[in-house]
Structure formats: structure tokens, C-alpha cells
């Protein structure tokens, strides 16, 4: 049996489409974990990235945090948090957020910092407040890069959120971990396919969001 046969067997089994271990439930759980982690990471990463980028300071500290964040193994962190904190969503959220903050933070900082200085100078010279300079001049131009940071973070969260199942939570990781344990490879392949599919959907959503919010003037010249 090859992978396609496994996948076909998994998705055509009607038992997999309902109940607490059904695809809709697991999918919803996975999306919920991912969105929560992305939201927390964005709440931390975006403001810090915007401010440091706007004032052009703290770049070295950011690079350090980013390297440290990327070097931490998510799985190891999960086990550590589980031992410290016990069951629950928190030990899962911490490694996901740690994983997602560096790309958001560093890309946002770079995006704002690399905005052409002359419109920024013009904006100040015509009497815009610093907040207006940031949100009306720098952010609209930096938006494509900021989106790319968020997108990278989102994809990493979606694929890593499978580890939630390791500490007895739900999500699509459930199929992979249970499948491996039960030597049920239909389940493993099905779960992995769903995770990959969700990652692609995430990509498509970011592409659409970028099309809708980035000005044509920035899109074509950038």
C-alpha cells in the first residue's frame, strides 16, 4: 500500500467525519490553537517590531532574541513546560509563541526600518505626529514585508501545533500520534495530509489578505 492508498482509506472512512475524534472537530481544535498562538505572538512581536523599526534602535538585541528563539527546540520546550506546569493549553502555547515571535518581530523591525527615509522626512516636515508617521507612512509601505513575517510564523505554528497531541490535547496531531502508537498508518498519513492542507490554506489566506490591504502603489513599485 502506498501513501495515496493510506490517505484514500483514511478520508473515505465515514467514521472519521464525525464525533469528538472526527476530522471537523480535530480541524477546528487545530485552527483554534494556531490562531491563539499567532494572536499572542503578534501582540508581542508587532508592537515591539514597529517601535524599534520606527526609532531604528534595538536591532542588535532583536537579532539576539531571534537567534535564541529559533535555536530553542519546540518539542523539548513542550516537554519542559509540561513537567513544570502540567496538563493544559499553556505548556503548548509557550513553545508555539516562542517559535512565532522571532519571525514576526525581526521582519517587522526590518520592514519599518527599511522604508525610504525621504517620505518619512517629508511627513514629519509637514507636521505629522510620530504615530501618524508610523501608521500612515511607514506601515502602509512596510505592509508586504510585515505580512511575510506573519505568514512565516503562521505556517510554522500550523505545522508545529501537532505537538499539542503529545500532551493529551486535540488537534490534527492527534491522528499522527495515535496512529503511530496504534501502528495505524492510514491515520498517520491522513493527519499529516490535513496538516499540510491547512498550511496551504494559510498561505492562500495571507496572499488574499495582502492583495486586499496593500496599496497598488506599493505592490507594483516594491
Amino acid at each position: 500500500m502506498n501513501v495515496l492508498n493510506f490517505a484514500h482509506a483514511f478520508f473515505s472512512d465515514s467514521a472519521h467525519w464525525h464525533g469528538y475524534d472526527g476530522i471537523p472537530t480535530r480541524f477546528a481544535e487545530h485552527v483554534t490553537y494556531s490562531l491563539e498562538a499567532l494572536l499572542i505572538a503578534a501582540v508581542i512581536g508587532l508592537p515591539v517590531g514597529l517601535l524599534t523599526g520606527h526609532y531604528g534602535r534595538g536591532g542588535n538585541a532583536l537579532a539576539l532574541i531571534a537567534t535564541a528563539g529559533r535555536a530553542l527546540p519546540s518539542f523539548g520546550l513542550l516537554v519542559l513546560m509540561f513537567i513544570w506546569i502540567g496538563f493544559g493549553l499553556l505548556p503548548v502555547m509557550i513553545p508555539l509563541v516562542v517559535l512565532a515571535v522571532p519571525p514576526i518581530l525581526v521582519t517587522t523591525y526590518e520592514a519599518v526600518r527599511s522604508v525610504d527615509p525621504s517620505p518619512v522626512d517629508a511627513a514629519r516636515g509637514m507636521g505629522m505626529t510620530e504615530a501618524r508617521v508610523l501608521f500612515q507612512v511607514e506601515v502602509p509601505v512596510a505592509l508586504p514585508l510585515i505580512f511575510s513575517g506573519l505568514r512565516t510564523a503562521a505556517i510554522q505554528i500550523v505545522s508545529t501545533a501537532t505537538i499539542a497531541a503529545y500532551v493529551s490535547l486535540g488537534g490534527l496531531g492527534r491522528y499522527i500520534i495515535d496512529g503511530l502508537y496504534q501502528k495505524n498508518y492510514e491515520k498517520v498519513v491522513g493527519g499529516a495530509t490535513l496538516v499540510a492542507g491547512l498550511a496551504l490554506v494559510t498561505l492562500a489566506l495571507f496572499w488574499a489578505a495582502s492583495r486586499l490591504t496593500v496599496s497598488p502603489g506599493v505592490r507594483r513599485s516594491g
Partner: protein
Amino acid sequence: MIRIDAVTKRYPDGTVAVDRLSLDIPDRAITVLVGPSGCGKTTTLRMINRMVEPSEGSILLDGQDIRRQPVNTLRRSMGYVIQNAGLFQHRTILDNIATVPRLLGRSKQQARARAAELMERVGLDSALARRYPYQLSGGQQQRVGVARALAADPPVLLMDEPFSAVDPIVRKGLQDELLRIQDELGKTIVFVTHDIDEAIKLGTKVAVLRTGGRLAQFAPPAELLSAPADSFVEDFLGADRGIRRLSFFPSAGLELQTAPVVPADADAALLASRAEAPYLLVTDPDGRPLGWSEPDRLTAGAVDRDRLLDFGRPFVPGSDSLRTALDGAVLSPTGWAVAVDGEGRAVGVVSQQVIGEAIRAAHSRVAEHADAKAGR
């Protein structure tokens, strides 16, 4: 009036950008700050809208220290144009121009109506309104920059090397446009450039700054050219300041000769009566110049246009300067300049010699005027 009063700008590393500079910038005129790089001209300009804060001294706007009003209120009352236009690439041309009216709380509709008005004023096609900056040429972008600075109708306009990034032909167009707009609007303009020709062309008064931010001379351009304060100013003005100075003398007083001007269908009698002149200027039936010819090479009633000598570049007495007239005479193979009216019809000719006399007369008038002013 903007009064710059003993202003010094010293940076933390000890560099002095501007050194005890005092300038009285007249209202409703163009004041140009010019000098080599490192002379503090841009720093001086940026101190007027507080983009840079002076270390010592003060700047007064209509008698009041500019630090007495909130910085953004001050800046919104002064148009600001910078070298690369600094347009907002995410906004359409119309919305770029509407920026300051929007900051001042006008509705989007009002601000856009005002922006459309300004596009026309600076010579931008209304079809460009919905475009984005990347779709415009450098010259058009700079026009948008000027329109954006004028949008809130500020009494003061600060321009920091606005035309130095465009090619010479476009630059000339932008300079002419600025002078035209200034004629209509009468703003108080402070204009920074490193190009002395631009300074002389645009400035009502020109402040020449030397490296280290000290004032070398502050005078109207004609005075700068006729009486440079020292060798630094003289060097900065360049080698041909004598010729350039002629731009400030009108050609209106030149005595034109009409006798050497003959129509192409002149009869033998007319040609015979003009045979004294070394050269005759032949015109077409409308009176437009065709070219020069020696009198004995002309045959009555049938001019061979191919055998005429080129007449160079004509000047318009009254609107052109002695410099243009002299240029016409130097370019003409006969040494005579052709004067035409606004329609291009020949109104007379003038020799290099006569132009030379006019130049001498103009110089002595200036000298007398200067003597009278000095009370001698």
C-alpha cells in the same frame, strides 16, 4: 518676516554646522541659501521648521519665537519640499497632495477638491490624479511635491534642493514654473541649492554660505555678481560672472537700426538705397527674418534663400536681457543681433558695438547708483 538671529548649530561630536548666522528673510520673496556641501544651508532651512533645533540663538516668525507654538502647528503652516519629492508611494497623486489639508481637519472631499485645483496650478494633467507616484517621471513627481507643499496655502514655503535630482531641461522647466507660481501666489520662499546659477535665476536675495556655516554674503543676485564680498564668493560665482551679470540689464534701451532690414521682394531702388550697410537682413512677407546677405549679392525681386547667412538667435527687446542680445550678436556670423517682436517679426538689428556701449552705460548707471547709496 522670518528672522534668523545669531543661530548656531553644534552637534554632540563638536561639529559646527551653522555658526552665529543671522539673516532677515523678506516676506513674499524667494530667498536662496547657496554654498558648497557642508556649509549648513540645509541645516539652516531645517531649523526654520524645527526639524533641527538650534544650539544657540533664535528664529523669529513675524516677531515671535518659533518655539512658542506647538511644533506640528508650526510645520503645518509651512510648505516643505525635499530633494526626491518624498511622495507617499501608497497614496494616489491626488491623496498625496491632499495630505496637509487632511491633517488640518478638512473633509476628504474638500481636501481632494483643493488637491485637484493645485494639480492644475503646478501644471499637472488631471488624468494623473488617480495614478501612483511610481507611474510618474522625476519632474512630475517634483511638481506633485510642490503642489503638496502648497495645498494648505501656507504663507511660507521651505524648499530643500527640490530640483537637483532631475535633468537640466526638466530643471529649467520646474524653475520657470516656480517663478510663475510665485508671481501668482507671492509666498515667502526659502530655497536651498548648491547650484549658483539656480540661486541667481530664482533668488530675490541670495545668501552665500561658506563651509562651517558662516555667512559670506547676503545680497540680491545682481549685486552679488557686480560686487562679490570676497574671493570665496567670487570663486563660487564662477569665471563668467561678468557675462551672467548682463542678465540683469534690460535690452529695452538698445538703439535698433531698421535700415538694414529689407523684405525678400525688395525692388532695385530699395536695395540701392540700402547699399551702404555691410549686411542686409532679408525678411519674408510677414516680416520674419530669413537670413543675412551682403547688399551686392542680392538681386531685386528674387532672393535665393539658400545663399543667405544664418541670423543666429533673435532677442525680444524689453523682455530679454542684454545677455540674450549679446549672445545673439556673438552667434550671428555678421556680428549683428536681430531684434524681433513677440510674434517673431524683425523690428531691427543691433551691432556688437552698440551692445558694448549699452553694457558700459548700464555699468556706469549701477556705479552711480551705488555711489548715491553710499552718499558720495
